[in-house]
């Protein structure tokens, strides 16, 4: 059984934040860099599949790594990272929407 569930929630929050940030950055970067998009396509056969695999890889690697790190998690830290995850998710979604809207209208 999982010994430290509090640390599991902390590890999941931190790695989910990293995963969300990765998706936002790599998506915008790949739209601006054909070489990166080609590399992502070559990695699995489709750029979206590659982004999916790597984002889940970041999440699960982070989950295990942050859980196993010998670090004491204070009570307030769990709440802080959960809040950060929600805020970063909302900002990430809005960033992608704004980017693709601008891209559609040729603003950038």
């Amino acid at each position, binding site marked *: 059984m*999982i010994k430290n*569930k*509090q640390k*599991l*929630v902390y590890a*999941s*929050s931190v*790695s*989910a934040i990293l*995963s*969300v940030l990765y*998706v*936002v950055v790599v*998506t915008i970067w790949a739209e601006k860099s054909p070489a990166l998009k080609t590399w992502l396509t070559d990695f699995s*056969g*489709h750029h*979206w*599949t590659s*982004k*999916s695999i790597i*984002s*889940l890889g970041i*999440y699960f690697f982070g989950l295990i790594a942050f859980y196993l790190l010998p670090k004491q998690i204070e*009570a307030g830290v*769990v*709440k802080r990272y*959960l*809040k950060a*995850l*929600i805020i970063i*998710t*909302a900002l*990430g*979604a809005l960033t*992608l*929407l704004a980017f*693709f*809207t601008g*891209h*559609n209208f040729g603003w950038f």
Partner: protein
Amino acid sequence: MEILLSKPVLIGMHLGFGIIGIDAFLWLLGELKYKGRKKPLLITAVVGTLSFIGSWLVGGFYYVKFYGTLVKPVIKGGLAPWAHNIMMETKEHIFLFIIPLALTALFAVLLKEDEFESLNIRKVVMLLAATVAAIGLVIGAMGFMVSAAARWGVQ
């Protein structure tokens, strides 16, 4: 198997799993608000997370196998190319946020009641469950626009 992997069935399963996922996380929100028993909390979080995984796998298969070659050119050449350029592009990427978020909510629900209270995270976990459901709803609305553009946006 042929019927199961056909386009209408894949779209239906993608949407069906998505709706179950959204409903489960809205239910989880209610269970958290009214301090429900442990078992229903866990069941709703597990069902919601598994449903979103199902929606991701089925929708991903459809997207990779059919969307790019069959649907995207129709939308791009129709009256509403923005439905692909903005809605589909945004939807397919913010979908990738959901699984880590849903798993985080599920792990939070594993905490005992006294741990939940001592960490003072009830409201923030409720907000997390609401965020998962909201992203699901936004993705659903975007998916409807994409389908509508392919169906009715043809010149």
